[in-house]
């Protein structure tokens, strides 16, 4: 694997993470991270949508009329999102219910359009596919980290399974209601950005 391709795949996971560095897709990151299961499916959906729409747009890149390129991209992204939503409705109904409108809102997730504009339109299909997938994966990673803490502290469970023993509750331990609400997700996200910036000094502004 050449260095450039490796860079394409690894960069979005950490150094150029779409959520913590580019600060895109915050809205859904706050909304669907109450439970790990939802965050996992959402992450997977975004990976599929970013990957496939970058791929398809990249295939079409030489033929798209420049003046209507945003609209054409939007049509492609919408297609992917609706297909994913329909598949979830058919094969994973309870999770689809839990994610509710947020699957549909992947259309407006800036990561998707951002990667198509910045990468898909200028690169060959395969690198575009990989770029889309790894950007989705970067998004999914942050979602899972946030959801891990929110589900653990908010409900005492992980992937729906109880991890904080009943004896803790009997001794007076209580789930933190604030963690379930979106503001706490933003605070957690802030902490992640803080940690990342203290590791990666070059991200800090002078």
């Amino acid at each position, binding site marked *: 694997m050449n260095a450039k391709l490796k860079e394409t795949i690894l960069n979005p996971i950490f150094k150029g993470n779409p959520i913590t560095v580019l600060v895109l897709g915050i809205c859904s990151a706050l909304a669907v991270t109450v439970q790990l299961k939802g965050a996992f499916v959402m992450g997977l959906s975004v990976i599929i949508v970013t990957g496939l729409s970058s791929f398809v747009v990249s295939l079409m890149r030489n033929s798209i009329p420049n003046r209507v390129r945003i609209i054409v991209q939007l049509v492609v992204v919408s297609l992917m999102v609706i297909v994913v939503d*329909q598949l979830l409705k058919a094969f994973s109904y309870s999770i689809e219910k839990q994610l509710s*409108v947020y699957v549909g809102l992947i259309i407006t997730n800036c990561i998707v359009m951002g990667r198509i504009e910045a990468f898909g339109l200028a690169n060959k299909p395969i690198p575009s596919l990989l770029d889309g997938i790894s950007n989705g994966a970067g998004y999914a990673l942050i979602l899972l980290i946030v959801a891990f803490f929110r589900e653990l502290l*908010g409900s005492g469970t992980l992937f729906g399974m109880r991890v904080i023993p009943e004896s803790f509750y009997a001794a007076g331990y209580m789930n933190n209601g604030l963690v379930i*609400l979106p503001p706490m997700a933003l605070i957690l996200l802030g902490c992640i950005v803080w940690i990342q910036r203290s590791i990666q000094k070059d991200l800090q502004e002078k």
Partner: protein
Amino acid sequence: MNTNNNIYTIIYTTVVVILVAAILAFTSMALKPKQEANVKAEAISQMLTAAQFAEKSELEALGNDKILSKYVESIDKALIVNGKGEIVDSLDKAKSQIYTESDLKAQNYLIKKGNADALRLPVFIFNKEGSKVTVIPCYGAGLWGPIWGYLAFNEDLTTFAGAYFDHASETPGLGAKIKDDPAFRAEFVGKTTDLSEDRIFNIVKGGAKEGQTNAIDAITGATMTSKGLDVAINLWLQAYKPYLESGVETIRQKAQAAAALAQQADSLAVSDSTIVAE
């Protein structure tokens, strides 16, 4: 090729849109049966949970087919009544025909319009351990979106056997407790409705009064959702009132007849013993 001239742009966008529309139409058609089965199984499992056949998560784990077969084997009658309490039709039990959320929404609109004749309200009567459990739905507005659910009554048609609620988008951890918190649902069990009052059932902010049997506590921090649920339950119980009242009346008459029969038997026994004594 010049991709920027007008004719090219128009043709290009047209082709893209037609192509995308075709793909979407195909996906939708191919997945529709499966999606509808999911919606149906979900609604049925909510009813079965309300009637306390099993917990929701247990039913979900069974899968759609088993949920349907459980419904078919436990349902006794699936009726449609109008707003005057008259039975006008019935649902196909074997095909497990039910009302989905959108059907309930349509009925909710009719109830609000106050047209008793036009109402087509479903009543599900289940056989459960030798007795009958009657399940009726309710529908209303929560804080962020629609809420709906099922109320299950014991044989006397006034005592709650259980309840189950669902919502489109209530706040997780607060309003969503109507669905997620088993303790809230458990509050209904054993409570009664009071058909003689304007407010048939109450969800009381700050806690129900001691000894009040037709009330439960509202959810702390979810005032609007609790209020919405209170309104929904009362509105729908009001619509079902004629049906429930006639049901209660029938039960009372039956009990009376049985009591009279018992009395008769008693007096006969008494006369027998007097004859023996002579």
